[in-house]
């Protein structure tokens, strides 16, 4: 069975970080869907997905980002991604995701891309 876990932590400037760990496939996507839904329910729209410990992603996993990005952006927020391994980035890249998402090297850069909340 695949192992996958999401840990949520808060940063300054009203930013939430979702740390992904393990294997994100058709079996494990509910954990990520639940986390994004929780963010929406709590009206938290400034999201960074830290992929440092994400070992694997299939298109089912990419679909979760597609499912939530519209709602997040409609509320002046964004989903930015950071710390991807080349292996994971390659899949996002093959499908053209860098056109739509901010994918940066480090979480700090992603945080700096959010404007300061007044």
């Amino acid at each position, binding site marked *: *069975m*695949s192992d996958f876990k999401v840990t949520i932590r808060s940063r300054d400037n009203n930013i939430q970080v979702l740390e992904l760990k393990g*294997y994100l*496939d*058709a*079996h494990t996507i509910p954990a990520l869907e639940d986390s994004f839904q929780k963010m929406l329910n709590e009206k938290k729209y400034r999201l960074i997905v830290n992929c440092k410990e994400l070992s*694997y992603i*299939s*298109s*089912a996993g*990419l*679909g979760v980002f*597609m*499912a939530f*990005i*519209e709602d997040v952006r409609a509320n002046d927020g964004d989903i930015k991604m950071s710390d991807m391994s080349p*292996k994971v980035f*390659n*899949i996002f890249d*093959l*499908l*053209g*995701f860098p*056109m*739509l998402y901010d994918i940066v090297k480090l979480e700090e850069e992603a945080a700096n891309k959010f404007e300061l909340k007044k």
Partner: protein
Amino acid sequence: MATKQTYKSSLSIPSQTERLNDVREFVSGLARTHGFIEDDINKITIAVDEACTNIIKHGYNYSPDKKIDVEIIRRENDFEIVISDKGKQFDPSAIQTPDMKDYLEHYRRGGLGVYLMKRIMDKVEFNLYSDRNVLRMTKTLH
């Protein structure tokens, strides 16, 4: 002239997403042994994951007690994966290559599996028989 060796290995799994990891380990282990570089091992693994996910989801409509057969045929220069199922017939002509720009701009979701398989494997072929669907994917060893 010496005959080139062909090795075959197979695995059957029930149509459950929790078994995707078993398939990935099976395929990646054999691809590694066959001498592929990590990038290719990852691509082969994902292609097989996408194929099995599609069968579980669309072929068997998440019915958990059906069967998926995965056979790996290793030849000197290539690695062929044959995936068979007895689910709903899959019409390869119905697969449209998505326009990724349009796809992303309109926040579409799903339907990327076949596109990804075709992008990352050297050959992808769907065959429909009266009693089963057979998908053959090949990756060449460079």
